[in-house]
């Protein structure tokens, strides 16, 4: 890239030059398109920086969930039979339905980005709203699952006091495991933290919907739609692992 095409300073280590450049950039709008922040040379420079920042955030998210997955691994390794019994108390049908709801919302999020790239604003709005609706659907199903767990006494740690008449038919006659509370502690932490991500997702997707509605995005600038979709796909990604690990233990 040639620096001559922009008004960026030639030597970035010169503080004086930077300041002069800043004053200049704030003073008029000859720098570039309206969406381009003055500290970026070109739109692609800004786009790549935003994407890298988002991927670093997603890497952090994976490591954040990683702690919970390691806790899961430790306790499942210690108490495999208790985990199997506890897993059978979860509703595979509801868990599977939620998997399909989230996968579908990932599809609509991906299509929303495509629509934003093409500049079809109305379609972008509709696809973002469908994604939000799916997120609410996910939370409703999760709510019914949680209510059943509370009623059945399938709770974390010392609160684990299952009521025999509420338990799954597949474990009838089997003794109540000693460490079921460990499973449900991990179950509520993992699905709870994931659920918080879904709620935050609803908020940020709505924010992007609002900005799209205001007409802030064009075929040249759709980075925020792309980034919010990346976040939403990560929420989907975590659930892709949570579903078999929690609901489908043999």
């Amino acid at each position, binding site marked *: *890239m040639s620096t001559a095409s922009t008004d960026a300073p030639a030597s970035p280590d010169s503080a004086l030059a930077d300041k002069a450049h800043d004053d200049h950039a704030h003073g008029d709008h000859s720098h570039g398109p309206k969406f381009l922040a003055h500290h970026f040379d070109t739109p692609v420079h800004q786009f790549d920086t935003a994407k890298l920042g988002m991927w670093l955030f997603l890497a952090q998210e994976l490591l954040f969930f990683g702690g919970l*997955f390691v806790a899961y691994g430790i306790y499942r390794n*210690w108490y495999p039979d208790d985990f199997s019994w506890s897993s059978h108390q979860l509703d595979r049908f509801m868990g599977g339905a939620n998997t399909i709801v989230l996968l579908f919302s990932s599809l609509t999020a991906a299509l929303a980005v495509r629509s934003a790239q093409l500049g079809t604003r109305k379609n972008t709005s509709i696809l973002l709203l469908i994604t939000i609706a799916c997120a609410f659907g996910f939370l409703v199903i999760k709510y019914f699952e949680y209510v059943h767990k509370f009623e059945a006494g399938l709770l974390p740690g010392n609160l684990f006091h299952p009521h025999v008449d509420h338990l799954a038919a597949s474990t009838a006659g089997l003794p109540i495991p000693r460490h079921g509370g460990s499973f449900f502690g991990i179950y509520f932490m993992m699905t709870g933290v994931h659920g918080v991500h879904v709620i935050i997702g609803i908020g940020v997707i709505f924010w992007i919907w609002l900005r799209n509605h205001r007409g802030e995005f064009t075929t040249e600038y759709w980075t925020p739609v*792309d980034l919010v979709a990346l976040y939403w*796909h990560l929420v989907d990604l975590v659930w892709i692992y949570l579903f078999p690990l929690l609901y489908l233990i043999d």
Partner: protein
Amino acid sequence: MSAYRENEHESDDGAVHAHIAPIKLYVGIFLALIFFTIITVALSLVHLGPVNLAIAIVIATLKAALVVTFFMHLKDDNRFNALVFIGSLLFGGVFLAYTLNDTGRRGETDHLQGAYVNPATGEVAPGGAPIPVEAPVEAGAAHDAPANAHGGH
């Protein structure tokens, strides 16, 4: 300046040129994800022992790869973003492997070393291999016996 020149999006005008994939591709990926979900539920109903866990993780990883490659556009993205993602997975793997190697083997050598979580009761750490029958489990045994008396070698 050259750090972002490698990007495929880069062109002379400095504008972002998107790779716009056809709708068919996205729908196809979605259908593949649903297919794998059905497969993983179906296989969980077959009793294969420890293989069940391995199959579940392999299928989940296939699904995750589809999401990351196509929905999250890593295929056409700056390679450095893929490195960030894979890097976090590798470090997560190190975390998991080393921790499981510890917690999964605790107590395995306690009876050899006369070391117990609670020496007064002979309580061993959770996990690890079953303690051989000749290991002292009665109260006070760990205090009375020399550290290597039960080594068996």
